[in-house]
């Protein structure tokens, strides 16, 4: 079993990174980033089989795609702390001439990023394409992807979800961040999506639920289960129930911090709730 204390320490540090990044430039998306911190830490440290260094083609390793690109702070923090680029570069988030654009891009050659995302709903198709190339290349490694729940309102997802089952793309684990929030309010208020699990199942996917999506142990258990369901003719979906803004009490259980940065005082409170563990950038 992995040492989950180390992962928890890393998660706390990632939360600090997120808060400090968005605070510095007074912009960015802390809510969803904080909600997915445990998931990213678990994915990059325990779940994915990754090669050293970065190669765009990702042959012989698991490959991850972030579809809801606005949670770039957590992505950048975990990529940096997984060795893809210098941790100090987090200082440049959203600044001019930076590789750390507001939304992730391949355009500035940031190691770790394989597709631009930000305009929502496109990542599922991209991930499926990469999964099919893995099969053509006889590469048994997996494709992982992450999508927001609100993002499922984009129709392209359902084209892709239908395609995946119809074509037995069974080397993908697509995770949906079920935090129930989007910019204008709760997903139920904005556009109720009904039973997402039933929808994926009706489209022919295998669904694994992680009800404690901010608990490292629960995530590891759920993702191992998801992995065990790949290669059986059906695409695999993980429904990851998270709390937006997790780990910073005043940011939790609300959509208010979807795309808003904390002020100096709020930053201080947030950092106090998440003491430095591995060293700030």
């Amino acid at each position, binding site marked *: 079993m992995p040492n989950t204390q180390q992962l928890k320490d890393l998660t706390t540090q990632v939360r600090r990174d997120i808060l400090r990044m968005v605070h510095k430039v007074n912009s960015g998306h802390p809510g969803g980033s904080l909600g997915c911190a445990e998931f990213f830490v678990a994915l990059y440290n325990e779940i994915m089989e990754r090669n050293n260094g970065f190669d*765009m*083609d*990702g*042959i012989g390793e698991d*490959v991850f*795609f972030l579809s809801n690109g606005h949670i770039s702070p957590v992505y950048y923090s975990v990529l940096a702390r997984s060795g893809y680029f210098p941790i100090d570069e987090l200082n440049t988030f959203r600044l001019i001439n930076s590789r750390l654009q507001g939304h992730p*891009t*391949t*355009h500035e050659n940031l190691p770790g990023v*394989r*597709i*631009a*995302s*930000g*305009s929502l709903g*496109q*990542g*599922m*198709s*991209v*991930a*499926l*394409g*990469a*999964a*099919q*190339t*893995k099969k*053509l*290349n006889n*590469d048994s490694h997996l494709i992982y992807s992450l999508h927001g729940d609100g993002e499922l309102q984009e*129709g*392209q997802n359902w*084209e*892709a979800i*239908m*395609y995946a089952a*119809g*074509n037995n793309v069974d080397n993908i684990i697509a995770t949906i961040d079920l935090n129930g929030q989007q910019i204008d309010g709760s997903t139920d208020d904005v556009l109720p999506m009904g039973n997402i699990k039933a929808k994926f199942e009706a489209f022919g996917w295998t669904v694994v639920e992680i009800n404690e999506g901010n608990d490292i142990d629960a995530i590891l258990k759920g993702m191992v289960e998801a992995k065990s369901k790949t290669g059986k003719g059906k695409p695999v979906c993980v429904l990851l129930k998270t709390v937006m803004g997790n780990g910073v009490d005043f940011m939790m259980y609300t959509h208010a911090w979807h795309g808003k940065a904390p002020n100096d005082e709020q930053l201080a409170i947030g950092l106090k709730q998440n003491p430095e563990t591995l060293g700030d950038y």
Partner: protein
Amino acid sequence: MKTYTNTGSKDTRSGFGAGLTELGKTNENVVALCADLIGSLKMDDFKANHPERFFQVGIAEANMIGLAAGMTIGGKIPFTGTFANFSTGRVYDQIRQSVAYSDKNVKICASHAGLTLGEDGATHQILEDIGLMKMLPGMTVINPCDYNQTKAATIAIAEHRGPVYLRFGRPKVANFTPENQTFEIGKAIHLIEGTDVTILATGHLVWEALEAAKTLSEKGISAEVINIHTIKPLDDEAIIKSVTKTGCIVTAEEHNFLGGLGESVARVLATNKPTPQEFVATKDTFGESGTPKQLMEKYGLNSQAIVKAVETVLKRK
């Protein structure tokens, strides 16, 4: 004056199909995707010969573009096939973010472009696709003129690293360029040398330009005809050189005059060598149902329209 012979009319989409068949044999990284239009795009051979590298995506073009972008990761060279309308306008943001901005090696192959799609009418006759695609940073835009050139262009773009928009059409048109030609992206082809006027044409209008040159020659007007198969990157040098000699220009395309080849040429001329120019193109309008011939006549996209434009531009020299 140099003349050209139609060796037998063929559709440019069949040139695409033939090129794809050839690529299937020569390049194992080439994969093809189609959104429920295999027969229309002439992708049947590739599908039959390489079923493992062919992906039927159904009527879901947005997903097709995303799949293609993803397939490049791991070294594949995806060719997507559907009508020009559904290859561009319908999926503009998918192309913009997942392909162009992400610098993915996807070849967007678009048939039934322009008015010559014919009877299906304006919903399917896109006249804005060149403009949409040329505005995307890093996108190469190619509109070959006949079967042989479309086949050669299809083969050539597999060797080009980066996103490409390849535009071709439905009707049978004159096939007059050499068989098994080498296609050089971005390199204009001088078809007829002339001294009085430059006619710069792309796609189906190239043959019409050749026909126009014959008529003009009978009237004592020496027209230089250039085939601009690549709209982006544009062969600025060839254009400037030609108008330096002729002093006026007519651009001809099966596309809206807003955003098409003509406007790209006007930019080159305005910044390098201001020159009188006339546009043979649709004039900010949608198309309609009709036969290709009727439509090209009604919307002023045939050899007669080119002759008329030449006569107009000559007066402005």
